[in-house]
């Protein structure tokens, strides 16, 4: 057995007996299910009640509702106010964003969890913005896909911290993309470990595809457009400073990435998109 296969085996075993990865905060699952209904049927009080069950999450949502990221001009004082002013889809975006933050370990030995979270949030926002600009499907779905695309990194941070640290240090030292460093040093990438967790959590099929193939969208079968969109948003974030805590020493031509051609098949508006000046 090669070293790489051995590590992959170890990952699978550890994931099997895994108890330390925090699950999606208990309140999120019912909240997300509730928010999937047509917006006319939603009740502000019900959403507020669901969120209030998790005090720390409610507090984080309120904080984020007041942040410039979500375009608040006025100060929001109450959770109900936040729910009303942000509209329902923003509430689910924020709740999931806080959920990801809560899933992260506090150990900063390798990739700083806050830096990682900023990358995930950045990718979520950029994915949503691209989706809006090129009229691609549901921007809320693009946000969620961008937010969760690197779920496998959370797995690696919890399950194989030492091995992941070595991979991250290799990436940093050589200035190469993290997934290439993971493949070289561990024999698998966060796409593989993310897929395992995504399947265990029974995430939506399109999210599992994004998690599994965002570095190779040509391999995705059903949801190629969304996977391609997240690949490009992820690259844009990494090249613009929202990276994994180190600079990738390379030049990227988005138009030559596999995702570009694939996304172009799904949206004719892509040709009217200015990649040099992605504006919000």
């Amino acid at each position, binding site marked *: 057995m090669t070293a790489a296969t051995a590590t992959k085996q170890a990952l699978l075993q550890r994931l099997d007996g895994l108890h330390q990865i925090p699950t999606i905060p208990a309140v999120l699952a019912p909240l997300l299910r509730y928010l999937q209904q047509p917006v006319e049927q939603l009740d502000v009080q019900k959403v507020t009640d669901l969120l209030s069950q998790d005090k720390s999450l409610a507090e984080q949502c309120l904080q984020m509702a007041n942040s410039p990221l979500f375009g608040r001009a006025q100060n929001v004082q109450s959770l109900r106010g936040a729910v009303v002013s942000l509209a329902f889809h923003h509430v689910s975006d924020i709740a999931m964003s806080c959920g990801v933050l809560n899933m992260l370990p506090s150990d900063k030995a390798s990739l700083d969890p806050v830096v990682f979270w900023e990358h995930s949030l950045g990718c979520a926002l950029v994915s949503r913005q691209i989706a809006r600009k090129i009229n691609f499907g549901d921007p809320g779905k693009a946000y969620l896909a961008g937010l969760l695309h690197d779920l496998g990194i959370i797995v690696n941070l919890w399950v194989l911290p030492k091995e992941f640290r070595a991979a991250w240090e290799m990436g940093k030292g050589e200035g190469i993309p993290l997934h290439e460093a993971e493949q070289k040093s561990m024999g698998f990438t966060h796409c593989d470990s993310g897929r395992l967790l995504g399947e265990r959590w029974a995430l939506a099929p399109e999210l599992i595809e994004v998690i599994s193939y965002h570095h190779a969208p*040509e391999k995705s079968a059903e949801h190629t457009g969304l996977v391609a969109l997240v690949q490009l948003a992820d*690259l*844009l974030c990494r*090249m*613009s*400073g929202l*990276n994994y805590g180190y*600079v*990738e*020493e*390379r*030049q*990227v*031509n*988005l*138009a*030559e*990435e*596999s*995702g*570009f*051609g*694939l996304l*172009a098949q799904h949206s004719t508006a892509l040709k009217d998109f*200015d*990649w*040099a*000046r992605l504006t919000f």
Partner: protein
Amino acid sequence: MTTAPSLRSVPTMDGPPEPELVRIRDVIYQTAGIFHPDNKLRLLQDRCGRRMKELKVQTLREYSECLTIRPTRQAELIALLNEITIGETSFFRNQPQLDALRRIVIPKILEAKSNLPLRRLRIWSAGCSTGEEPYTLRMLMLEELNVQLKDWSTEILATDLNERSLAHAEEAVYGSYSTRNLTPSYRNKYFIPQGDKLQVNALARSNISFSRLNLSDDSRMTFMKSMDAIFCCNVLIYFDLASKRRVIQHFFNNLLPHGYLFLGHSESLFGVNDDFRLVHLPGATAYVKGERTPAGGKSL
């Protein structure tokens, strides 16, 4: 306090634009490709006002004649262009762009030129204003002299339309504002104190040639050949689409096949030119020539 008499006759921008101001706008556009849309006419009016005060000219009509009929019209046109194109800049203004040049772009250029007998690098600072950008580039080249650029000669061409800016650049004396981003190491290595200001030293002033160039002068643009990289930051914002397209096409022709074009932070060639390819570098973007490949077919 009363308004200066020379300015009193300048009309406000309420209502239709003054025909004389429109005429001056057309002269500027025809000469330099710089177009002032209606919402920027107030700025042009202000710049004309400064010249009118200097010349003690009372009306825009009279000033328009200074630009078109009088024997000194050529000199006055240059003086007005000097007022219009005053740039705001500083040393090491865009650090990610400079890091990308040093760590990614220069190695790629050197690799592309590795089989050529002439080991020379030519960089053009187009719209160099008061010189901070070309001197910054020169300092970076000097830092690489014994590393990547061993056995290579480097040449920096710095051009601007504004004669006053060029005179400042050649004098190379700068105040605290434009030197605010200098690290102590660069300050000690490449500057000499001049009272409370700093002058670029002889080493960092070597191998740079400054000259006046109008980017809309097609015949002179044709001769700016064999460039490895062109920096044209925050200059094209003054140009209208047609002039911008012409200038960019010249840049495309002026660059060697592996050449790079750098624009200002918020500038884009989207809708201006399809020949250049956009590339993302860490914290910066640039445009490259090189062959086009179909979408999705990686060539790098």
